[in-house]
């Protein structure tokens, strides 16, 4: 397979980038022990999805750009999620004095 540099950036490059970001986010979400890092991983995943949406919007839906509208909704929801998530984290920290995910196990069966 010979390597040729394309004159324009292909859609697949953005999709691959988004996949990297998303998978990193998933891995961080599963493995982080610090609760703040879990929230950050969620943000990474949302951003990966957003890159996908924007790439599709530019390459496949250039006139209607519905992907951009969707990305704005995702950004909105992400902001709300971050605010509530961090508030929950703060009250958890106040009660348990720790941010270790492994010790938030009250609801464990």
């Amino acid at each position, binding site marked *: 397979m010979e390597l040729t540099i394309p004159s324009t*950036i292909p859609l697949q490059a953005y999709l691959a980038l988004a996949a990297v970001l998303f*998978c990193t986010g998933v891995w961080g979400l*599963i493995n982080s022990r610090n609760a703040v890092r879990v929230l950050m991983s969620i943000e990474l995943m949302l951003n990966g999805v957003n890159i996908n949406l924007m790439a599709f919007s530019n390459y496949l839906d250039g006139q209607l750009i519905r992907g951009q509208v969707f990305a*704005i909704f995702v950004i909105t929801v992400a902001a709300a999620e971050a*605010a509530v998530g*961090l508030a929950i984290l703060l009250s958890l920290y106040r009660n348990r004095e720790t941010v*270790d995910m492994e010790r938030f196990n009250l609801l464990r069966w």
Partner: protein
Amino acid sequence: MNIASITQLICFVALSATLVLGALGVVLLPNIVYSAFLLGGVFLSVAGLYLLLNASFVAAAQVLVYVGAVNVLILFAIMLVNKKENLAAIPGLGLRRLLSGAVCGGLFLLLIRVAFTTPWALPGPEAVGEEATIRIGEHLFSDYLLPFELASVLLLMSMIGAIVLARRDVLSSDVITGELVDQGLIEKERTPLLLENSPR
């Protein structure tokens, strides 16, 4: 191949490099503060990618909301809870990391395969470019009006929820003993110099 496309390519490569390295740093770095600052870098490079994708408005919104609000919020949270804390070791952590890494790798391969085998309808219609802001506004106030309004309600709800959750002086019950405790009183005991009411 002209100057514009070379510039674009260089920008893309640089942005994706910072993006990937930053994301790995966010997940892997032991110091949580570094992770948070790197997260800001990731958000900024994502905004740069949006600029490459002819979406300047969304890029600006990304910077405004993610860097200006979410990242600062996360940093505030870290500064509030950043206490030296030795996490207890958990058996089988390495195996767990390895297994989840394998799962994530598999997910990544799956995504790549889908991305490269799907016959995308390329080239699509011409991109609108600078008129995107107007288009987004039209969308938001016509066919996406309901989600738009719902988003505003969601933001209001989350704002109130966050304030209620993060307030100190709410009555809550102790998680272990179940008796009613006043968070404000607990805080006051801990910090006897705390004022009775916040100074006006």
